[in-house]
C-alpha cells in the first residue's frame, strides 16, 4: 500500500459535480504539484478553494477536501477533489493525477485499504489472506456500486431468473402432489437454461471493456528502421507531457510511457525492429518484439508514406495480427499514393503533427469503442469476475449436457446451484435461504 491511488468516486457524466478521490502517502505532495497552492501544511479536515493547473493551464475551478491520516476512511491521507461534472473535466483531472504518480484504483480498493489499515501489523500473513478473501467477497457489492451499480443489477437479474427457476424445480420436488403448479419439464428447462446462458455469454463478451478500464490498453509500435517510429512515439509521449515515468512493466514488455485517452490508460510498448537478422543479441530482441506484438491490444505499424511499400514492410506486415493492427502512414506530406494497397485501418500524418495525433487517437477510440465505455462503466473488470461468470456458464452447460445424458433433475439442480453461487460470489451474496423464501413467495402450496 505504498502507492497512491485515485479514482472518480461519482458516476461518470452524471450530475453537476464530480468527485475525484486520492488516497495514499503521496496524496498531499501530488495535489500540491497540481493545485494552485501548496496544501502540505493545511490543517486536516478543511475545505480549500482553488484551481487544478496543468502546465500553466487552468483545468478546473475546484474545492479540495483535505483529510489527513489517520482519521480518514482509509486511515491514509485523503484528498477529495470536487470538480465540475461531465466526462471531460473529470477525466482530465484523473489524467493529470495519473501523470503525477497516482495509480488508478481498483474497484473497492479504497474500502480494502480502509479495512486493512491499522490492523495489518497485528496479523499473520495467512490470516490476512483470509481477510482479504472474505472482504473482497462481501464488499464486492459496494465496489461495484461505486462503478454505478449496473453490473450488480445485471447479475442480479440473471440470478433472479435462475432463482425463480430453481424455486419452481424445488416446489415440484417438495410438493409433488400440486400438479397445478408449472412443472419444469426437460424441454422447458433446456429452453430456460439456454436463455440464461446467452445472458452470461453477453456479459463475458462485454468484459473486454472492463479489462480496458482496469488494465488500460497496451499499444505496440512497430515498423522498419527510419520510418519515424521513434519520433511518433516521442510525440505521443511528449504530447502535453503525457509521460508519467519510465515504468518497468510487470510483463516482459518495456512500457515506454503511459498516456491517458479519455480516462483510459494507454501503455506504449517499445519494440525492437522485427526484421531478419544474423546478430544473436538482435535476434533475441526480435523474438521479444514478436511476443510484445502478440500480447499487445493493438499494434501500430508505421510505414513511410514517401516511399513504396517494400519487402521489409511486407515482412513485418506478415508478422502482425491483422485483426488488431492500425497502419500509420507517416510523412504524409510527401505521400506518393493515397492507396497504399493494404486493407487495414489507416492513419495519415507527418511525424504525427497535431492532425495526425488526433487521427490516431480517434482511431484508437474507435478501435476500442472507448466512447461507449465512458458512458457505461458497468463491465466485469477483474479476471476474477470474468472467471466467475465463465464458471457460472460452464455449470449451466454441464446442466444442459447432463439433461442430454438423462441425468435426473435432483442432480442437475446442483449445477444450477453452482451457477447461482458463482454469480453470487461476484456480488457478495450467498444462496442461503433464498430459494426457500422464493418458493413460498411464488407458489401456493400446503395443506
Amino acid at each position, binding site marked *: 500500500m505504498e502507492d497512491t491511488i485515485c479514482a472518480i468516486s461519482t458516476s461518470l457524466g452524471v450530475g453537476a459535480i464530480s468527485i475525484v478521490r486520492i488516497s495514499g502517502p503521496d496524496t498531499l505532495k501530488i495535489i500540491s504539484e497540481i493545485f494552485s497552492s501548496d496544501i502540505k501544511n493545511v490543517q486536516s479536515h478543511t475545505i480549500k478553494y482553488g484551481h487544478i493547473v496543468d502546465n500553466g493551464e487552468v483545468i478546473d475551478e475546484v474545492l479540495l477536501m483535505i483529510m489527513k491520516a489517520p482519521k480518514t476512511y482509509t486511515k491514509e491521507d485523503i484528498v477529495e477533489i470536487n470538480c465540475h461534472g461531465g466526462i471531460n473535466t473529470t477525466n482530465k483531472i484523473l489524467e493529470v493525477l495519473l501523470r503525477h504518480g497516482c495509480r488508478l484504483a481498483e474497484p473497492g480498493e479504497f474500502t480494502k485499504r480502509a479495512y486493512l489499515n491499522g490492523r495489518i501489523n497485528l*496479523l499473520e500473513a495467512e490470516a490476512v489472506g483470509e481477510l482479504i478473501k472474505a472482504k473482497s467477497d462481501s464488499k464486492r457489492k459496494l465496489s461495484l456500486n461505486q462503478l454505478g451499480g449496473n453490473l450488480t443489477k445485471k447479475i442480479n437479474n440473471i440470478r433472479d431468473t435462475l432463482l425463480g427457476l430453481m424455486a419452481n424445480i424445488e416446489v*415440484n420436488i417438495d410438493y409433488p402432489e400440486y400438479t397445478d403448479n408449472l412443472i419444469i419439464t426437460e424441454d422447458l428447462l433446456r429452453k430456460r437454461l439456454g436463455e440464461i446462458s446467452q445472458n452470461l455469454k453477453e456479459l463475458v463478451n462485454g468484459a473486454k471493456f472492463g479489462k480496458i478500464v482496469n488494465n488500460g490498453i497496451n499499444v505496440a509500435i512497430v515498423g522498419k528502421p527510419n520510418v519515424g517510429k521513434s519520433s511518433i512515439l516521442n510525440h505521443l509521449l511528449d504530447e502535453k507531457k503525457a509521460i508519467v515515468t519510465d515504468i518497468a512493466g510487470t510483463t516482459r514488455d518495456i512500457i515506454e510511457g503511459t498516456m491517458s485517452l479519455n480516462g483510459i490508460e494507454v501503455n506504449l510498448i517499445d519494440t525492437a525492429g522485427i526484421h531478419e537478422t544474423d546478430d544473436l543479441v538482435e535476434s533475441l530482441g526480435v523474438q521479444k518484439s514478436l511476443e510484445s506484438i502478440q500480447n499487445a491490444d493493438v499494434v501500430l505499424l508505421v510505414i513511410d508514406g514517401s516511399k513504396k511499400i517494400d519487402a521489409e514492410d511486407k515482412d513485418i506486415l506478415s508478422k502482425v495480427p491483422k485483426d488488431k493492427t492500425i497502419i500509420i502512414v507517416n510523412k504524409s506530406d510527401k505521400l506518393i499514393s493515397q492507396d497504399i494497397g493494404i486493407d487495414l485501418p489507416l492513419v495519415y500524418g507527418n511525424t504525427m503533427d497535431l492532425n495526425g495525433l488526433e487521427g490516431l487517437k480517434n482511431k484508437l477510440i474507435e478501435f476500442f469503442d472507448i466512447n461507449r465505455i465512458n458512458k457505461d462503466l458497468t463491465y466485469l473488470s477483474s479476471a476474477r469476475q470474468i472467471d466467475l461468470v465463465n464458471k457460472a456458464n460452464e455449470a449451466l452447460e454441464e446442466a444442459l449436457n447432463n439433461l442430454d445424458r438423462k441425468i435426473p433433475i435432483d442432480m442437475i439442480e446442483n449445477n444450477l446451484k453452482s451457477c447461482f453461487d458463482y454469480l453470487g460470489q461476484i456480488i457478495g451474496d450467498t444462496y442461503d435461504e433464498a430459494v426457500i423464501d422464493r418458493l413460498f413467495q411464488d407458489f401456493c402450496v400446503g*395443506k
Partner: protein
Amino acid sequence: MKYDIIVVGAGHAGCEASHIAAFKGHKTLLLTSNINNLADMPCNPSIGGSAKGIIVREIDALGGLMGKAADRSHFQIKMLNNSKGPAVRSLRAQVDKKVYPKVMRKYLDETANLEIKEGMAEDLIIEDNKVKGVILEDGTKIYSDAVILTTGTYLNANILVGSENTPSGPHGEKRSNTLSLKLKDLGFNIKRLKTGTPQRIKADSIDFSKLKPELGDDEYWTFSFDNGPLYDINKQQKCFLVYTNEKTHQIIRDNLKKSAMYGGYATGVGPRYCPSIEDKIVRFADKERHQLFLEPESIYYDEWYLQGFSTSMPRDIQEQMVHSLVGLEHAIIEKYAYAIEYDAIDPMQINFSLESKVIENLFTAGQINGTSGYEEAAGQGLIAGINAALKLENKEPLILKRSDAYIGVLIDDLVLKGITDPYRMLTSRAEFRLLLRHDNADIRLTALAYDKNAVSEEKYRALQTKLSNIESLKALLKENHLKITDDVKKFLEKENIAVPNGNFNYTILLKRPEFTMKIIENFIDLSAFTEDVKNQVEIEYKYEGYIQNAIKEKNKLEKMEEKKIPEDIDYNDIKNMASEARQKLGNVRPHTIAQASRISGVNPTDISILLIYLKKEYGKNEC
C-alpha cells in the same frame, strides 16, 4: 416417585423419546394428559412426504419407531419424485388414524423400563438451575434426573374459529395452562405460534363420482429397514382431488373479516408452507383455482380429511365454502376447521443435543422447539431421548451433522437460525441432499446410533451384512466385462441402447444412462443380491460425479467444523465487528467457525474479523 427420565407429552416426539430412553436402560416415565390420545395424529392422516419420508427412514435407522408403526398402519403408500432422481425420492403413506396409535401403544407397552401415566404437567422442579422433576396439576411431584418436554400444541393453547377464541388443546383436549409461564420465569423466550387444520367430511355425503382419484403405487415399499412389506398392494385406499372455484373464492373474499386471521383475532405466527385457504386467496389473488385433497382418516370410521382447506372462518361460512366445491355440494361437515395458537420456546436457547442452555438436564423436542410436522417432531424426540440418556450416562451426546442426516439439518437450523414461523423440513434445506438419500439412511446412521447403544445388536449386524454385500456386488461388477457378442448386440439394439465400442466392465457401463441394473441383469446373474443392495450400487456408480462433488463439499464443511471457537470467548471484545453479529454470536455461542457462519445476521466479513481475532487472542493452535 423417582425416575431417570420423565417425558412430558405423548405425541410423536414423546413416544420416540421415551421409547429410546427406556431402550437404553433408563427408568422412564411417559406422561400424557390423556392416556387414550397417545401418538395422536391431530392433523393430516399421513406420514412421510417429500423430505419427511427420509426423516422417517432416518428415525428407523437410529432405532426409532415411527417407520415400523407406519408400515403396520397405512392403507396407501407411494414413492414421491421417483422420476426426479434418487436424492429426492421419499415415501408418503396414508396412515389409519385409528391403527397407528394402537401400534405405537403396543410398541411402548412392550418396552422394558417404560411406564406410561396420565397427568398434566404444570410446573418443573428446579434446583441449582438443574431440573429435578415435574409437578402435576394436582400438586403431585414426580422426581427425575432429566426431563424432556414434548408438549406439542398444548402449551397455553387457544382454538380460533371466526371470532371465537377458546382456551383448549387440539380437538378439545385439555391444554397446559401454566407450564409456559414457568418456562418464561426460568428465562426462556416464549414465542406464540399458530397452525391450523381443515374440515373433516362425512364419507357418504361426498359425491366421489365427480372427483379424480389418486392411487397408491403398484410397487411394494416400506419405511423400516427391519421389515418387508406388510400390506396388500391391491387393497390400498384411494384419495381424491378437489378444486376450489370462483364461487369459493368469492365467499372467502366476502367474509374475509370474519376469519380469526383477517379479523385481527389471532396473534400467533402461522407457517408459510401451511397457509389457510383465506391466505391463499389473498396472496395468490390471480389464481383461478387451488388444489385440495380428500383423504380418508381411517377405514374404521367415515371421516375424510379435506387437505388444503384449513381456515379460521366461522362455521356458517365454512358450510358455504365447503358446499361451493364440486363433489361436496351436499357434504356434511363432521368437524369444522380451526386455527390453534400455542406457545413455543426460542430454539436458539437449546444446544445441538436438544438440552436447553437455560436449565441443565432439561431437553425439548417437537413443536415446543418451533417445528411442525409429525416426522420433524419424532426425529427430535428420538435425539432428545438418546441425549438425555447419554447425559445421565456421562457420555458425549449424539450430534448429527448437516452432512449426516435431515435430522441434523433440522436441529442445526433450529439452533443457529431460530425460527420465525413453524419449521417444516424441505429437501431444499439440505445442501447435501445428494448424500442424504432415502435409500442410504441406514448406511449413514445406524452405526452412529449403535455407538451410542441406541440400536440393537441385530440391527447393527443386518447393516454389516448389507455393507459387505454391497462390496461384493461392486467387486463382481468390476471384475466382469460385457463381451459384445452378436446376441448381446442384438439385445441392446432391440432395447434401443447404444452398443459399447469395446468390452467394458459393468461398473463402467452402469455410468451410462441407459445401462440400468435391470439391463445388466440380463447379462450377469445378480440373484444373490437384494434389490436394496443393487439399488445402492447402481446409484453409487450412475451418479458418481455428482456424489463425489457433494462429498468434496462435505469435507470442506467438516474442515470448517473443525475450526473450534474457544468457549470463553467474549464477543464484546471484538471491537470491529458489527454489533448485530456480536449479539447473535453471543446469544448462540457457536462451537465452530462453520456454525458461526450459518447464523443469520452474521456475514462473511464478520467471520473474517472473528478469525483474525482468534488468531490474535488465542494464537495459531486454537483455530
